[in-house]
């Protein structure tokens, strides 16, 4: 066996407290090594330490041998020569990773010319090559970062990282910020690059599906230490460490096999096909019709939300019955949050009607409007930003009471304690501030606030997508239990199909501001009628190397990469 390309020997990183301790792992040329582990386990700091990118306050010990040289012992100039040349790096947030004031092509060219004396013309040719390599049109060269989508930006960042044919590519959560479909494309690109450039990849992620999809070997970290490492198939099949096991257990994956050919359906009206309660559109300019039953809690009809000329939501009809959970899925920008905004009153619809328990919201004024508002609870995606950082837990939970009821003092405290109990939080947390809580705890506070007034309707806008896998599982369990107990109607918004599958009774699939398909959850997610739904389903990775391979091939067959 050849010596490994990269080898970490007892690498420790410490700020005030240690962040990574005695980390050992190695990586051979052409290999993909995934580093997984819960948030804060030291994955990123370890990787940053390799290129000397940690802030000055960090102390690094140990050795990191890259092609036989200890990276920690290099001079500043030598290190610069390695950066972007021997080792390329891709960061998590593509939106902020590029300088907003320079053209993408110029930034690429600058990196190209930073190593090895290429002329301007040569660099330009290389930029075109790179853009082609990551599947971007040559015209992208002249764009500014804000003119590109997240997926395109991530491609640029990857192009930048591979610009000088590095032997090693470090990718720190390269897809976390992206849509499932875009994520699948980016992963495909990485796989392709590895094949074509023969680069080794150090992939940092917390998404087991991504690991299953891409990696040869996996390193599991926890609390700054490596707890387990080995080939992916082995670790996934027979995790040895207890933490690895719980990690894999809490992964929520779609249950069904990759979508097969669409089942037969009958055309019920021009452009609309149906199979029982399962309805889909075949014409791109239609929204699937909605048949609200008796007494829905929420009924939308012909809802249109426009930002200037742009129609983010276009003639959508939807309803949520009593005690029912409607899952609203669709990729980023499809209009999910805009619908939620129209229901909660944060955005004013351009057209259409929003009826809450039979009352038309836009007609209500003053007290009546306020009362109607009190019957809707909302849980947001990002627990950190949904709580006022300067308000205690108790204050946040009490705010609905303060606004809508005359409750004060001890009675109020009692109610708050009751709610804390309902979301399984200890009353001792009452006086903490949000930053003193974990992500899961914060989200529970958010849920407690949302259910405080015993709402008829709960709107959950991506309530778990910012959370760790293990935390996410626990919050979803809680959510399900509460729903079963309190029987509120729920509009559950998510781009994660697996999550929706676990919670929703019915599903509506949103694409370009229109509902393209709607029906009972199990039917829509196993036998989708609309091609977009099928693509969405196929793109979602599952945390099983074998099944994931099947799904990937199905996805590739559906629309091909890029």
């Amino acid at each position, binding site marked *: 066996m050849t010596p490994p390309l990269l080898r970490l020997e007892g690498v420790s990183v410490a700020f005030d407290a240690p962040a990574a301790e005695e980390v050992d792992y190695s990586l051979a040329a052409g290999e993909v090594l995934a580093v997984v582990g819960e948030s804060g386990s030291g994955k990123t700091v370890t990787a940053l330490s390799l290129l000397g990118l940690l*802030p*000055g*306050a960090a102390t690094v010990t140990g050795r990191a041998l890259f092609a036989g040289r200890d990276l920690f012992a290099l001079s500043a100039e030598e290190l610069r020569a390695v950066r972007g040349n021997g080792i390329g790096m891709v960061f998590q947030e593509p939106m902020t990773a590029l300088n907003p004031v320079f053209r993408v092509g110029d930034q690429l060219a600058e990196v190209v010319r930073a190593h090895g004396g290429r002329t301007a013309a040569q660099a330009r040719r290389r930029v075109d090559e790179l853009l082609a390599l990551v599947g971007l049109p040559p015209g992208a060269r002249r764009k500014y970062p804000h003119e590109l989508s997240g997926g395109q930006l991530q491609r640029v960042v990857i192009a930048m990282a591979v610009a000088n044919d590095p032997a090693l590519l470090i990718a720190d959560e390269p897809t976390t910020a992206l849509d499932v479909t875009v994520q699948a494309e980016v992963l495909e690109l990485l796989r392709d690059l590895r094949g074509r450039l023969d680069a080794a990849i150090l992939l940092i992620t917390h998404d087991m599906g991504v690991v299953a999809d891409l990696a040869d070997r996996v390193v599991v970290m926890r609390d700054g230490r490596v707890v387990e490492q080995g080939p992916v198939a082995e670790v996934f099949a027979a995790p040895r460490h207890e933490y690895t096991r719980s990690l894999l257990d809490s992964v929520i994956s779609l249950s069904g096999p990759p979508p097969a050919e669409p089942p037969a359906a009958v055309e019920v009206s021009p452009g609309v096909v149906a199979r029982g309660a399962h309805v889909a559109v075949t014409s791109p300019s239609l929204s699937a019709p909605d048949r609200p039953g008796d007494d829905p809690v929420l009924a939308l009809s012909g809802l249109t939300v426009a930002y200037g000329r742009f129609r983010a939501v276009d003639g959508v009809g939807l309803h949520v019955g009593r005690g029912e959970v409607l899952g609203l899925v669709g990729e980023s920008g499809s209009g999910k949050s805009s619908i939620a905004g129209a229901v*909660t*009153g*944060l955005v004013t619809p351009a057209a259409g009607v929003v009826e809450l328990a039979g009352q038309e919201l836009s007609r209500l004024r003053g007290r009546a*409007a*306020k009362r109607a*508002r*009190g019957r*809707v609870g*909302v849980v*947001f*995606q*990002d627990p950190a*930003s*949904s*709580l*006022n*950082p*300067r*308000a205690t837990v108790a204050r*946040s939970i009490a*705010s*609905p009471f303060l*606004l*809508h009821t005359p409750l004060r003092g001890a009675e109020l405290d009692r109610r708050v304690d009751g709610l804390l109990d309902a979301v399984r939080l200890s009353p001792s947390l009452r006086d903490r501030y949000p930053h003193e809580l974990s992500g899961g705890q914060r989200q529970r506070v*958010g849920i407690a*606030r949302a259910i405080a007034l015993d709402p008829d309707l709960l709107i959950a806008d991506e309530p778990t997508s910012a959370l760790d896998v293990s935390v996410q599982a626990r919050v979803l369990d809680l959510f399900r239990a509460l729903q079963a107990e309190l029987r509120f109607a729920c509009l559950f918004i998510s781009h994660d199909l697996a999550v929706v599958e676990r919670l929703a009774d019915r599903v509506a699939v949103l694409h370009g501001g229109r509902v393209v398909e709607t029906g009972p959850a199990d039917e829509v997610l196993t036998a989708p009628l609309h091609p977009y739904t099928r693509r969405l389903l196929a793109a979602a990775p599952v945390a099983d190397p074998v099944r994931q391979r099947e799904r990937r091939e199905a996805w590739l067959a559906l629309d091909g990469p890029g």
Partner: protein
Amino acid sequence: MLRRDRWALAGAVTIAVLGLAAVAADLLTAIEGQDPYSYRTEALDPGTGGPAGVLGGVSGDHWFGVEPLTGRDLFAIVVHGARTSFLIGLAATLVSVVFGTLVGAAAGYLGGWPDRIVTWAADVFLGFPYLIFMIALGAVVPSHVSRPLLLILVIGFFGWPSIARIVRAQVLTLKERNFVAAARILGASPWQVFRAELLPNLWAPIIVVATLSVPGKIGLEAALSFLGVGIPPPTPSWGRTISTAVDWVSTEPMFLFFPGVALFLATWAFTVFGDGLRDALDPKTDVRR
């Protein structure tokens, strides 16, 4: 946190000392046995009207020497001047902070035409040669309106655009945060949102900006007194004393030195204190430390 920043601490201590001197001005001058109003022509050089003796007449009787032409005690003038400067600096800051915060928050939060009007009004104010305005106002306002009050209001009022801009920007980002949306969804009125959700999060930037704007206001009072529209004599004011002292600098440098150093110290102290406060309150800078 501030305790780790020795410079900010030094600033805070200086502010405290000067503030204390301002509050206890009467006591201090009583100990010295002087007051800032009495003429002491016997302490002057009869040939020139300048202070008799070396260093501008510094002595056990007159700790900082005396003022030329009048013989008034310079120490008394400086500590009583501190009172004027601090009163005007702080009170005017309060005025601009209150007004700027309300207006800026309203603009940022409500958006639409209130926002446009506020940004536009800020433009008007910035386009306005306000020094001129203050001079005119000094002449227009009837004399029974207290000048310090007028100064506080005018200096304070002209300070609102900068505060409003900062608050507006801050509110714009806060508005995007979900906790504000959560409150709105619950049916909170704009005022309730402002009080319960926005204001607690605005304190930090407001306090920092306020601290940093105090020295500017003190300086402005000095400049206005220089132009003769500040605090009316004989109430001591650093600005007026400094502007008089500039003429004397080649013969009586100490006359400029003491009030000059006091003004510099006050400005310096508020600035480093404000900077330290900003660093302490900004989580980002704290991590990088």
